[in-house]
């Protein structure tokens, strides 16, 4: 029995730690992959310590978790005591119910509903920006509270009711009885509750995403938003470091604890006795400990105040909202565009500027936050169809092109496109074309060439399809020659039939977004439709057994992401200076090289060094010679669809997914 339980415990810990070991190993990987280990390297650790945005996010996350855990522990313990002593059974069970609600609510709904409420409340109070660090903290305290209460309450109920009564009968005040009898009794539960609150706050993504304001992004948000590209391995390095820090803390606390510290204390007492001094008065010791704890709290509060005010004090602030991993950030020797801009701006204009660079995961997420006036940004970089929608809804400001002289370098092909026909609101940042990536070691060259490859039953269980409705339907519609923006529902039904056939024939291995990188690199999937630039990112990390190739089908998706100024902008002039800076040669080239997406900027694609750096194959794929770009673009790009149609497409998507 003893042995069986030891084996069982060991197995459980293997289960709990297996993924962490994987992260640990791959944090030393030379390549970007989490599937293929290509050699030992410390470069991701260097990247991590250079990456100021990530470090800032780590600090934000920790500050938030400490504040949320502290506040929810104090309030939650008090609440548990209150509920426990409540005499009215009706009231008690009512409060019990309410306590369960934040746990029962799916976090996405808790997030959205709190966002709606904060927006509503700030409108009542006439505040401009409804979301801030405060709203984030409130949300975190709210979802941590029930976990603390649910830890403490059962412990209270388990406690012998006679104990506090006995204390009071012996002359203790109710306060005294609480401090001296009840509190020590429930202390382990309080500590567990606090640790849980801290952990939950640390790990939460969804609720934070909806309730945080400009200037305070946490680590999970930053990681989630990397989905346009892929999670970078400096995150594995970060996980490894966290792991060792906790391990060190654990060892330390075990050393100072129990027998050891008792031995130490005994030794200290003996020393005092030997020196002829009396043993320390317990009261004095308590005061000493109290002072220590108080100091720690003050330090913490100071740190929090410092962080909160730090972001608000500077005179010039520019808030930029972009896709994750979509700007050259200084990693692997590239240019840190944001940092360079700040330095350049200060030199040029004699005033410092603080850039808050933050990220979103999809056009829809960004739209939801901006359309509710929940946050304010000065520059955003959405995709074409979303720009069309935002213009239609008066959410963008016309640009003053006198402040953006570098607009002249934008190729004529990228002007006057459907989403901004009069070139008033947007400056193209990058563009891309969807193509098909395949593993030549699995796929017969003769089968490649068009969309049919993704439906070819020869490759059952090898095809990776998009895991979002618009792009997945797109593949079927381009294949069948259907207009991807049609309002004719029967055409969408046809596309669904095609996708159902693809799924039911067993061709589809997975529906993927950013997972496509790992799966293609390791050979887990052999065929996938994805963006041209991403093909090169995958090439860098492919396994020895994999030989990735790329081609464009005849009809396919084109997209453009462009820089815009939303109507909530606080500092339009600096925003325009920033946009202009992004178009200047050095940053524009750095961004194009970092993202691997094509640039509409002549300064980039006509630059010999850039062309050299990219290589012939990449230039041919990224900038295909297709004659009139705007004609193709206007024919095949996604456009904004109305809500009813989106709803209809969504229900078709659900039909596909439940089969």
């Amino acid at each position, binding site marked *: 029995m003893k042995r069986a339980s030891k084996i069982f415990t060991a197995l459980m810990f293997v289960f*709990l730690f297996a993924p962490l070991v994987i992260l640990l190993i791959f944090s030393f990987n030379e390549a970007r992959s989490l599937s293929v280990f290509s050699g030992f390297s410390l470069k991701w650790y260097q990247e991590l310590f250079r990456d100021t945005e990530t470090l800032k996010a780590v600090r934000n996350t920790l500050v938030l978790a400490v504040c949320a855990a502290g506040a929810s522990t104090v309030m939650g313990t008090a609440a548990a005591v209150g509920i426990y002593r409540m005499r009215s059974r009706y009231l008690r069970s009512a409060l019990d119910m309410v306590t369960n609600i934040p746990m029962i609510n799916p976090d996405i709904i808790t997030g959205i509903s709190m966002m709606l409420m904060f927006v509503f409340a700030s409108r009542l109070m006439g505040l401009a920006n409804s979301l801030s660090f405060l709203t984030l903290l409130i949300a975190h305290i709210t979802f941590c509270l029930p976990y603390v209460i649910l830890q403490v309450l059962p412990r209270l109920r388990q406690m012998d009711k006679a104990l506090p009564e006995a204390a009071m009968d012996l002359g203790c005040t109710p306060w005294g009885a609480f401090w001296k009898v009840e509190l020590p009794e429930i202390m382990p539960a309080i500590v567990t509750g606090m640790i849980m609150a801290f952990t939950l706050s640390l790990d939460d993504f969804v609720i934070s995403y909806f309730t945080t304001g400009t200037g305070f992004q946490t680590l999970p948000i930053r990681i989630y938003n990397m989905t346009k590209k892929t999670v970078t391995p400096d995150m594995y390095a970060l996980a490894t470091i966290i792991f060792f820090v906790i391990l060190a803390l654990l060892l330390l606390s075990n050393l100072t604890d129990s027998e050891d510290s008792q031995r130490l204390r005994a030794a200290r007492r003996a020393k005092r006795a030997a020196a002829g001094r009396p043993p320390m008065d317990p009261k004095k010791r308590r005061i000493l400990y109290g002072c220590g704890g108080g100091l720690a709290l003050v330090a913490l509060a100071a740190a929090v105040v410092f962080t909160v005010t730090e972001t608000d004090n500077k005179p010039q602030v520019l808030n930029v909202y972009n896709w994750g991993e979509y700007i050259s950030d200084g990693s692997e020797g590239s240019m840190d565009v944001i940092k360079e801009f700040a330095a350049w701006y200060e030199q040029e204009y004699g005033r410092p500027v603080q850039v808050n660079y933050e990220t979103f995961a999809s056009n829809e997420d960004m739209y939801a936050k901006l359309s509710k006036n929940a946050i304010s940004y000065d520059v955003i970089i959405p995709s074409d169809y979303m720009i069309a929608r935002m213009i239609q809804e008066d959410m963008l400001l016309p640009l003053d092109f006198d402040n953006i002289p570098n607009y002249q370098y934008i190729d004529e092909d990228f002007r006057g496109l459907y989403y901004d026909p009069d070139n008033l609101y947007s400056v193209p940042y990058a563009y891309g074309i969807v193509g098909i990536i395949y593993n030549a070691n699995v796929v017969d060259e003769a089968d490649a060439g068009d969309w049919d490859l993704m439906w070819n039953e020869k490759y059952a269980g090898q095809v990776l399809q998009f895991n979002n409705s618009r792009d997945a339907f797109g593949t079927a519609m381009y294949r069948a020659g259907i207009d991807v923006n049609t309002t004719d529902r029967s055409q969408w039904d046809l596309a669904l039939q095609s996708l159902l056939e693809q799924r039911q024939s067993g061709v589809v291995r997975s529906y993927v977004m950013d997972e496509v990188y790992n799966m293609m690199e390791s050979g887990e999937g052999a065929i996938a439709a994805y963006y041209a630039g991403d093909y090169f990112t995958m090439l860098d990390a492919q396994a020895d057994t994999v030989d990735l190739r790329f081609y464009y089908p005849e009809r396919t998706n084109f997209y453009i992401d462009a820089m815009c100024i939303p109507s909530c902008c606080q500092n339009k002039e600096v925003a325009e200076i920033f946009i202009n800076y992004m178009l200047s040669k050095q940053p524009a080239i750095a961004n194009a090289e970092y993202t691997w997406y094509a640039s509409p900027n002549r300064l980039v694609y006509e630059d010999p060094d850039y062309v050299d750096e990219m290589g012939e194959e990449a230039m041919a794929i990224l900038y295909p010679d297709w004659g009139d770009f705007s004609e193709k673009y206007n024919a095949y790009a996604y456009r904004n669809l109305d809500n009813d149609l989106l709803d209809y497409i969504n229900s078709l998507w659900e039909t596909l997914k439940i089969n």
Partner: protein
Amino acid sequence: MTAKKKRSSLVTGLAGGPYEVWAVLFILVPLGFVAYYAFTDNDFRFTTANIVRFFTDTSTGGDGSAVRTYLVISWRSIKLAVISTVVCLVLGYPLAYIISRASAKAQKTMMTLIMIPMWMNFLIRTYAWMTILQDTGILNNLLAGLGLGRVHIIGTETAVIIGMVYDYLPYMILPLYSIMAKMDHRLIEAARDLGCAPAGVLRRVILPLSMPGVVNGVTMVLIPSISTFYISQKLGDGMFFLLGDAIEGQYVANNLHFAAAIAFILMVALLAAMAVMRYFTEKHTYGGL
């Protein structure tokens, strides 16, 4: 004595007061917003259409017959969540018991070890599981190396369950442990001394004593696993569609009202389930003692 009673109720009021205000402001009011959105259309006129739609929307199933879309989705979500919860309980219960019987130092160490995985971001943890479970992954290479052949796990319900169990197991162990650590072990010894068989000790002594922990653990695991969308997307290869996916999908489609309706129905169902569970266990536990 009456003065003491009065002061005692004052303490109670002071203790619970801030929380009551907080609960109303930040739990009930947002809940009101969910209900408000669930029962209105895009122009904020009252409607029950969203709720009705949840129960009536149909789509064509694999065999050509019509199925109720959201009921099918709900059924699958409930099934996976219940299986995950049961697995968590079966694994977590003995582990929590073993830990609670270890030395004080070992208890602390093991509990911290259980918390450590949760301090790594869950997105990254899930990524790591993809690496382990996929066809060319570590588990399969290990099995093949041992000559046991390969298994296809990723993209199956099993993979989703493994992911959920992994992510939520600590939520089961923590409340169980917190109750068991406090359990009076003399009761167990007494039962043994009096000739009770091990199974009897478990059923008649340990289980009733740890019941509040079981209830909390089940609550803490069941709820996140019924509404997750990230785990099912990554480890289920995007082949499954759960309630969390449905809500997220409606949100992305800019259809907040229907998203709120799905959430509202889910919430009502879960609250009812909790109420029933608490009613029975409370009677059972405290009646038995």
